[in-house]
């Protein structure tokens, strides 16, 4: 009898049938949908998608629109501040909690609960907390500092920072949990060695522990950044993009163009720009993380 293999197509038949939803989703929705949107971003689609080509017109108009430029600027401010602060706060919290403290579970539970809430809930709570008549500003004034002024949601210049406060409140717990997992994953003998060598704790963190936590940092970074790009619900709930257009963000721009302004082409072009941004971050990460590894040891 000649040796060979049974028909490839019908081997693992059940597994292939079971994977159909995944294959359909991957190819039809994710790949197909992305290509569709990118293709239609070069058309003049208005209320309905239409294949009347206009080249790069939509992109030129996009970058000439003030609302989009404000949205990009806001995203940059929010993004940079969020990134830096969420990492600093998250790491410090994790380091504090990692000091073999009592009530660890209670403290961790309280710091993380905002993450379980909807952005809409977060946005509304902070809208209320930052209300100048009844919230933080009025309390400080009642304490005797009459000229104190802190009304980010009513002051176009600093409104985005009001959103940042809410975003940090909700997101820092996640970073703390991930960092804590990273800290706990480090070989405890490193600490013993540092102690025997007489290295102060802060130096051990900066020069030994943090470099060892590189994988956790990178994963957290990717998560935080993709979260920042998706920023939408929080803005809608907390400020609605206002005052004026001072807290517009790209995700909201896309939604407004597609579903309120009947300007699909603009929406497609703007969402394509969002995809490009994410791709610039995710692809280098994926190459670093998975590119070097070989399969089958």
């Amino acid at each position: 009898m000649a040796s060979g293999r049974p028909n490839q197509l019908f081997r693992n038949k059940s597994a292939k049938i079971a994977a159909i939803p995944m294959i359909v989703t991957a190819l039809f929705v994710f790949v197909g949908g992305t290509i569709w949107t990118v293709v239609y971003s070069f058309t003049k689609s208005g209320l309905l998608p239409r294949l009347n080509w206009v080249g790069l017109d939509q992109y030129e108009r996009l970058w000439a629109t003030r609302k989009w430029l404000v949205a990009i600027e806001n995203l940059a401010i929010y993004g940079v501040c969020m990134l830096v602060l969420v990492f600093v706060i998250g790491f410090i919290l994790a380091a504090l909690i990692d000091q073999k403290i009592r009530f660890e579970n209670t403290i961790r539970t309280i710091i993380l609960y905002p993450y379980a809430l909807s952005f809409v809930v977060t946005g509304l709570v902070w809208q209320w907390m930052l209300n100048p008549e009844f919230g933080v500003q009025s309390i400080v004034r009642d304490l005797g500092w009459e000229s104190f002024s802190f009304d980010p949601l009513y002051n176009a210049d600093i409104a985005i920072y009001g959103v940042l406060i809410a975003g940090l409140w909700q997101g820092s717990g996640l970073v703390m949990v991930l960092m804590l997992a990273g800290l706990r994953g480090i070989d405890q003998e490193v600490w013993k060695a540092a102690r025997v060598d007489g290295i102060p704790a802060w130096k051990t963190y900066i020069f030994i522990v943090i470099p060892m936590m590189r994988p956790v940092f990178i994963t957290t970074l990717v998560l935080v950044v993709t979260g920042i790009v998706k920023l939408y619900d929080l803005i809608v709930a907390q400020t609605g993009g206002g005052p004026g257009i001072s807290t517009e963000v790209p995700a909201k721009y896309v939604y407004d163009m597609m579903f309120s302004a009947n300007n699909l082409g603009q929406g497609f072009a703007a969402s394509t720009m969002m995809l490009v941004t994410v791709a610039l971050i995710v692809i280098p990460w994926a190459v670093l993380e998975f590119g070097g590894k070989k399969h089958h040891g």
Partner: protein
Amino acid sequence: MNNSVEIKNLDLHFGAVKVLQNLNLEIGKGEFLVLLGSSGCGKSTLLNCIAGLLDVTAGQIHINDTNVTWSEPSERGIGMVFQSYALYPQMTVEGNLSFGLKNAKLPKAEIAKRVKRASEILQIEPLLKRKPAALSGGQRQRVAIGRALVRDVDVFLFDEPLSNLDAKLRAELRVEIKRLHQKLENTMIYVTHDQIEAMTLADRIAIMRGGQIMQLGSPDDIYGRPLNRYVADFIGSPSMNFFDGAITNGAFTVGDLTIPLTGYDFVSGGPVDGAATLGIRPEHVVTGELVENEPIRIDVDVELIEPTGSDKLIDCEVAGHPFRVRMDGQAQVSVGEKLRIGIDPARASLFDAATEVRL
């Protein structure tokens, strides 16, 4: 109809990596064959191919004169025991034993009969209602063997079944597996990296390296007449002493030492001049009063002593090569002393320096 398992021209590639290369192996009915080798030699891979858990790239596998190359594992007439026991944690011992039989849709009475018989043989009847988590390592492995036993098959496959147990338990279960084989008289193919296990259990041992069989033979053959330098080095602990020298005029010379090869049983019939390697097992070196009976006698300086209780291992130097000698544990010897040792070339092994094949 004499062979239980036949492997013909078997190849297995993972992408560009050739894990098994043109492997041929015939295992007789009722034989206990051990596949021995260091990790990555392909021994477990071969076992998985026989079980049908891996698809082969080329070649055939026959079990009981049936070509099973494309058959499902459950249709091959094999039972398998794994290193990690692989007991289904959510099922009781009884459930574990009967799972395969239920899948084969056997009648209930037959299942009960087989489970009873297997649990009697392995003395696990009191454990039948327990979950695997409530068992000790030894008990778990017994259940895993039982799972192969209930299948009532001719071929048992063992994939390093004792590696997860501590030394004492391992020795106990080793004896038990040997008894089981004597009682059941079915074919057993047993993968291990432990040479003591291989030596004690096997009718024949296949030593593997790089996806090929380096030597197939009885434990005595493998130990006494290793076919090549790899096998000679792999088998035996402490390992064999080697001298890289040459054969000239029927004698082996290395440095200023000449060893006449009278009494050495050449594979090819007689000595041929050329570069060669001589191997001597530390336990074949004679010390004490018996030295004078040996054909070759050498004086060495004792450099290091490793007492193991029953033995003393002596490190010294012979003809510029590091050399180890095994002495009795009670022998009186100290570092720096002169020691007289005796060697018999008839018990040594000679290999061609280039091909590393036995001469």
